[in-house]
């Protein structure tokens, strides 16, 4: 699996890794983030 060039949906969670962090990771690997969100179930 290669992240380079892929379109990524980043589904973060407040108690885990948040969406912004996932997006930063994906972008640093050469992917395009098309949706980024952070869910909270508290």
């Amino acid at each position, binding site marked *: 699996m290669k992240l380079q060039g892929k379109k990524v949906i980043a589904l973060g969670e407040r108690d885990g890794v948040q969406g912004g*962090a*996932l997006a930063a990771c994906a972008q*640093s690997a050469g992917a395009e983030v098309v949706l980024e969100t952070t869910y909270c179930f508290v």
Partner: protein
Amino acid sequence: MVLLGTPNAESSRLYAMTVTAGDPSWAGALAGVALGLPVYHVMEEAVKTQVAPEVYEEQVALMEMVLEAADIAQAVQEVRAHTGQGD
């Protein structure tokens, strides 16, 4: 593809199944809808090794120390295997 940041194995499995085979709880709009999207957790080695080390360290490393990364990775891998996605 879908990148997850879920905090435990159970929620990771639920998210992964929802974006591949459809919502297993049959509670949401994706019940019975098999999107078949490739799904990975950010703490899986297959993802981690492709992220710039300084970015991973700043954004994820702290949470990786407190979450059950191995259990989470196994849960998502099982869903991929079950839905016919290779690693």
